């Protein structure tokens, strides 16, 4: 653990995400959101600008159509977006670890059969699959499903959609570990399947699972962003309300159970992409920064010795000397 903290990429990335989450929770709990102003006045009381305002000192990332500060909106939404993606990634990892272990126990022919079926996922992007399965509930037939279904079902789809491929990956890793010699000796000593898994294989598997977990958080975030662009947002899209709003121009946020969720911000503001580009750039940049932080963590973890595939030989065996300018003395 101490070694991990020394990795600047890991610390930096984790710090970014933790700060974002903590800030988001604190903001919602403590700060009363400022009343949006549709107009900006100068010192004489004359109107100088009308919402949405472009990025400025007062609005670092600009404002939305009602004059809400985008920076604060993003901060408020961070806990939903990042929290949900962590939840989904956790679900994926837990199910895939179980699935991978079950696959590992199965005979090889059946495994090959499943691997062949799962190959289908290599010919179509996950976004399309997810969309086709989520859209009926949250958009196309939105009238007939209750709100809890609209929130839970998309999450389940997002979890389950990548379990087949991830399970196969876990099973492959388990196969690799099972080839090691000490597994054979453990078998000879009479260890049961599960005991060998728990005592001898899990220590090798766990670091890998951690890396996949963090990678999956990034993947889920990307899918959220994609779905946002396809106008689906996780956690209560109500299309009828949206359509009603287009006609009357009323505020939309009130009817959404998860206000200011980033993907939702993309979905809501995509219509303004050409006229007020910051309104879409702000949430997309938030996604980009978070994904960058996550990739930083993954990069740092992979570079750290415990998580590397091949362990380097101990360097201590050969004492090393550093030769510098001070090593030499100038003599006449």
């Amino acid at each position: 653990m101490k070694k991990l903290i020394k990795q600047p990429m890991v610390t930096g990335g984790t710090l970014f995400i933790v700060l974002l989450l903590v800030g988001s929770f604190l903001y919602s709990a403590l700060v009363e959101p400022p009343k949006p102003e549709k107009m900006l006045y100068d010192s004489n009381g004359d109107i100088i600008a009308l919402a949405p305002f472009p990025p400025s000192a007062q609005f670092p990332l600009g404002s939305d159509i009602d004059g809400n500060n985008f920076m604060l909106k993003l901060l408020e939404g961070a806990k939903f977006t990042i929290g949900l993606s962590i939840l989904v990634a956790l679900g994926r990892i837990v199910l895939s670890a179980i699935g991978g272990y079950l696959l590992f126990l199965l005979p090889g022919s059946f495994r090959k059969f499943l691997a062949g079926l799962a190959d289908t996922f290599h010919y179509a992007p996950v976004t399309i699959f997810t969309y086709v399965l989520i859209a009926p509930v949250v958009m196309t037939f939105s009238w007939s499903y209750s709100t809890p279904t609209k929130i839970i079902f998309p999450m389940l789809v997002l979890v389950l959609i990548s379990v087949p491929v991830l399970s196969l990956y876990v099973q492959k890793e388990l196969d690799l570990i099972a080839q090691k010699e000490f597994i054979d000796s453990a078998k000879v000593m009479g260890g049961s399947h599960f005991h060998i898994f728990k005592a001898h294989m899990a220590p090798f598997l766990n670091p890998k699972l951690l890396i996949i977990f963090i990678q999956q958080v990034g993947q889920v975030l990307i899918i959220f962003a994609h779905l946002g662009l396809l106008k689906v947002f996780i956690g209560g899209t109500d299309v009828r309300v949206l359509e009603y709003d287009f006609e009357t121009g009323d505020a939309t946020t009130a009817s959404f159970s998860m206000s200011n969720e980033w993907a939702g911000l993309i979905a809501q503001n995509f219509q303004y992409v050409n006229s007020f580009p910051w309104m879409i750039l702000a949430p997309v940049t938030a996604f980009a920064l978070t994904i960058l932080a996550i990739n930083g963590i993954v990069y740092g973890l992979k570079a750290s010795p415990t998580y590397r595939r091949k362990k380097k030989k101990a360097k201590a065996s050969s004492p090393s000397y550093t030769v510098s300018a001070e090593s030499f003395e100038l003599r006449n």
Partner: protein
Amino acid sequence: MVRSFFTRTAIQFLLTSIGIFLIGSLPYLLFNMESQLEVLKMIERKELNNTLFLSDNIVMNVGAYVTNIIDTIAVIFSGNADQYYARGGVWPLFPEFWEAYLQSMQYLIASLFIALVAAILLTILTMLLPTHRRRLPKAFLFVMESLPDIFIILITQITIIWIYKKTEILLFNITSGFGEQAILLPILVLSFLPALYIYKYLLLSFEDEEKLLYVELARGKGLNRSRILLIHIFRNSIFTLFNHFKGIFLFALANLLMLEVIFEIKGFMTFIFQNGVLNNEIVTMGLFMVFLPSFLFFTVTQWFLEKSFNVMGDP
């Protein structure tokens, strides 16, 4: 040896095809599609205004699922899949779907080709640098590949609009309108991220090869650096590149969808996304239309590579 390659391929082909049918009909397993479609049609014909009294649950309709799979297979093999339902009416599927497909595939193939060429050039240029100078391109690569595709697509689009507003020079057509097609820009944008990925994998594989003994031997014999790089290392990296190419292809497909949405191209992926929910056979067909040519391409290339690199162990 050759025969086992073909059997393996045939089994793989069959399994993936079954997988496509299983996935394409999945909505019928989870939703009461038939009754829902009826309601939707009634709403769109304005026969039904109040939907508050309707409610439904997620179900497990194994019977409807199997029936739909059989129906879809029958429809596709009999060639009767020529209509689709959208916007309250039934429309002919062809040639609209086919044209969208051809257009999107042109974008995809052109940009993958550009990506490949650009990535190979970049890799060779980077490899010509001394080892300690390669850190900067690598750091650049890390940051760029972390950016989500929609970020890059949006940034490009907004930059071009910004340049247009400042200087009144329109570098590229941004969106597709009547009679005018945005061609060059989408291809360039689409090739950007795949190029980065190919560059990344190729660079890794080049650097692995560079440490091997045969490179040292070649150097010792006095072959010059670029010759070793271009002929020997490059040839040995092709196999690794090919193994990664499948993933990059899938990644480019996902990019294509986002690109079509942002650039408002009425392409293949948008067509599936807009009509796939109500017409699940379009999803199945679309998957096959991507799967068949790419599977053929991957299989032929793999066969060719295995043969010419003698991986199968033949004398």
